[in-house]
């Protein structure tokens, strides 16, 4: 029997954790405010109330109401959106107990939910938030044909239920040498077998979908979490996030999408310059590999200039921090955009690749990604050009809460 005092104590602790910090009225004034809805505002002010943006305007014409906390910075941007990360699931320490991004028991596990893995208290969540990241698309990692699902979460508050934006965002799929079984004699050992397994499973899901549609309740099949998940993919309700690097594997994914009418987000796509036309014609958006991704294995053709190529081709794309197996345990999407800006993207295009573009790709552009009235008050403050290594993030506002102040 647990003493009631301990229950009470636990309840109090949980209360502290779960209560949203007071969403005070805040004004953010910047020498330059990048709204991403139009040209930057010189001397701009963003007024925040109830966790949302009230107004965005000129400092000369906006009066900061009494009682508002005033933050100032040289440069103000929308809170950064990391288009694809494994932060919170692939933990900082890289020990068995904090690595939940890949279950190797089977090659296809679309039923694994990211909400059941995400650790909002992992130090890397703090790390990226302190560098301006307010929204993370994170979840199961690469390494299996379907390793599980992903979610979209704010980097504050620390209670997952309150921070959650999209609990079932995508299915994390990988096609390439990394998705092949490391175990001897265990399928898939080849890419063709991998596609064979995916097709066979999707055929099963199509069949399950048909049975679910039967008018006779008695004839409907028993619930199957695995197939239910794949039906969501078939219906386009939950896209497949396909981590795929090599040109031939990219084409295989597009072929699979055509066969089953799938909604795809292409992820990684190191060989994109080799199949740019096919990607554009598919209409699928791209979450590009980190600009600093290492050129090896199936990323051997990776280029810092690919973002600029996608931009010129008119393909909707975002930049990501990606999954890192070792050191550093996560990249920082701000720095990945910075290097893309140094290799062909304009400042605005690079900033869009870590704000409004990922918001569009993830279907959350009504909430985040720009500074506009009615949107979530997610803001990053910098003491100089955000992309310069020697600048600092001097504050992060998430859902109207000032979370980090001081140079980072």
């Amino acid at each position, binding site marked *: 029997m647990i003493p009631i005092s301990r229950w009470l104590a636990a309840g109090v602790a949980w209360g502290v954790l779960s209560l949203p910090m007071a969403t005070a009225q805040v004004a953010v004034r910047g020498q330059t405010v990048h709204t991403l809805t139009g040209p930057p505002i010189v001397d701009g002010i963003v007024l925040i109330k109830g966790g949302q943006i009230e107004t965005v305007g000129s400092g000369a014409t906006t009066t900061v109401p009494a009682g508002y906390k005033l933050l100032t910075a040289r440069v103000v941007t929308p809170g950064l959106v990391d288009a694809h990360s494994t932060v919170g699931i692939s933990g900082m320490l*890289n020990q068995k107990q904090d690595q939940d991004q890949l279950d190797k028991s089977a090659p296809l596990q679309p039923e694994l939910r990211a909400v059941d893995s995400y650790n909002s208290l992992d*130090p890397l969540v703090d*790390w990226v938030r302190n560098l301006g990241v307010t929204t993370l698309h994170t979840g199961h990692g690469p390494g299996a044909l379907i390793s599980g699902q992903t979610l979209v979460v704010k980097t504050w508050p620390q209670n997952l239920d309150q921070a959650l934006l999209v609990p079932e965002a995508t299915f994390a799929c990988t096609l390439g040498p990394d998705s092949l079984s490391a175990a001897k004699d265990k399928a898939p050992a080849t890419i063709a077998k991998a596609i064979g397994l995916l097709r066979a499973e999707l055929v099963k899901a199509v069949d399950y979908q048909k049975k679910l549609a039967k008018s006779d309740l008695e004839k409907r099949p028993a619930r199957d979490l695995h197939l239910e998940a794949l039906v969501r993919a078939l219906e386009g309700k939950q896209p497949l996030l396909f981590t795929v690097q090599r040109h031939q594997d990219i084409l295989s994914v597009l072929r699979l999408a055509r066969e089953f009418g799938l909604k795809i987000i292409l992820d990684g796509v190191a060989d994109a310059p080799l199949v740019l036309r096919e990607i554009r014609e598919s209409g699928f958006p791209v979450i590009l590999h980190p600009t600093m991704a290492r050129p*090896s294995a199936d990323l*051997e*053709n990776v280029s810092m200039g690919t973002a600029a190529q996608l931009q010129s081709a008119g393909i909707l794309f975002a930049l990501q921090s990606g999954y890192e197996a*070792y050191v550093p345990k996560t990249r920082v999407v701000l720095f990945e955009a910075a290097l893309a800006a*140094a290799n062909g993207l304009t400042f605005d295009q690079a900033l869009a690749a870590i704000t409004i573009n990922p918001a569009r790709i993830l279907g959350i552009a009504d909430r985040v990604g720009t500074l506009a009235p009615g949107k979530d008050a997610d803001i990053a403050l910098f003491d100089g050009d955000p992309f*310069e*290594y020697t600048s600092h993030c001097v504050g992060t506002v998430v859902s109207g809460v000032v979370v980090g102040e001081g140079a980072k």
Partner: protein
Amino acid sequence: MPFGLNRWSARQSFRMQHSLARWCGRFLAGFSLLGMAASAHAQERPLALLGARLIPIHGDPIEQGILLVQGGKIKAIGASNNVVIPPEAERRDLTGKTLMPGLVDTHSHIGLATSGSNERSGPLNPEMRALDAVDIRDPALQRARAGGITTVNIMPGSGSLIGGQTIYLKLRQGRTIDDLLLRTPTGRIAGGLKMANGTNPQGDPPFPGTRAKAAALVREKFVAAQVYREKLAKAGSDADKAPARDLALESLVEVLAADRVVHHHTHRHDDIMTVLRLQKEFGFRVVLHHVSEGYKVAQEIAAANVPCSVIVVDSPGGKLEARDMDWKTAGVLERAGVLVGFHTDDPVTDSRLFLRSAALAVRSGMTRDGSLRAVTSAGARMLDLNDQVGTLEAGKDADFLVLSGDPLSVYTHVEETWIEGVRVFDRSDPKDALLATGGRGAGNPRAASLCCFGNGGDQ
């Protein structure tokens, strides 16, 4: 003395007195041949680079200065009114550009991708040589040139306590590794000894399972080397009395004689202190590498007068002993008076982005000048190459970079890399640009070159 210069140079002269005659004799012939090959490529006609901002490292930047290069060496550097340009010199206008010394990467694994860098058959491998493993045709070397790296210490990995002999290379355009070698004043192939502690070299026997066991294994090996050294000394020139050659102990005798510097991988504050303890016991010269928790024991490192080569990565963690990694490390060590350098640990960080390390350190409190020394002259001192490289000074090797702007800006590109008066990287050349940014053919260490039989040169 700032940066522990005093003791470092004292040790250098000590090393000179204890030159190992047999190494000398074996390699002197090769040395002079190499010298001829290198000078054949360098320009005999002087080259005057005009109009650029010069960052010489050992002094203040010079606006619109002149760098005069001839025969692979810097002949003169200074303000436009202080350098006499010989009439026969080729003149090149670099107005708007920035020139600085070639970068010195004190810890890299480029060229080892296809050979492996961790020998896991046993924990003590001082006889292993990176010399026998580096593939100099790996595009990783050209990517390093694209990042402005001109001198590099290529090391075995940290998977064993003593990983083997490292090799200091000039990233000259060469056909074989011999073309890239550097020699010590005694004629030996320049390089240090890689060691590691903490969790990486741990494992099942014969690897240590604990930190104390790791230290004990290393101490036993060094004690054996001391005995071996005594036997060698007693035998003198009498070959019959000399002990049988032991390649492992020979290497450690060089370490005991302070002729070969130990490059020690270490992260945690207690592991750092263990290295300092071993250094004190055996009297070797050591550079601490990574030093993730160096900010916790900065005073102790400074007191021991041991230089630090710091790694800068984008986030902490990835392993237990790197959980407290912090960008402030370099700045804290600098303020404590420690000689601070950086390294890429390529492929952990990318050689093309080595200047990022300096910039991120400045973000977290290091001085700007200190950060630029850390990627040039400080590294040169850690490799005992500071007479030759690391600053733009008359008489030093003409190893320099042409940058499009400030070295710490993300928007700046390395446009050209020069080694000993020879341009080894030129971003305006599409082949080099491919290596600088990536793309098809840039990342495969053994890319096939099948097109087309018989029409290529001998490269």
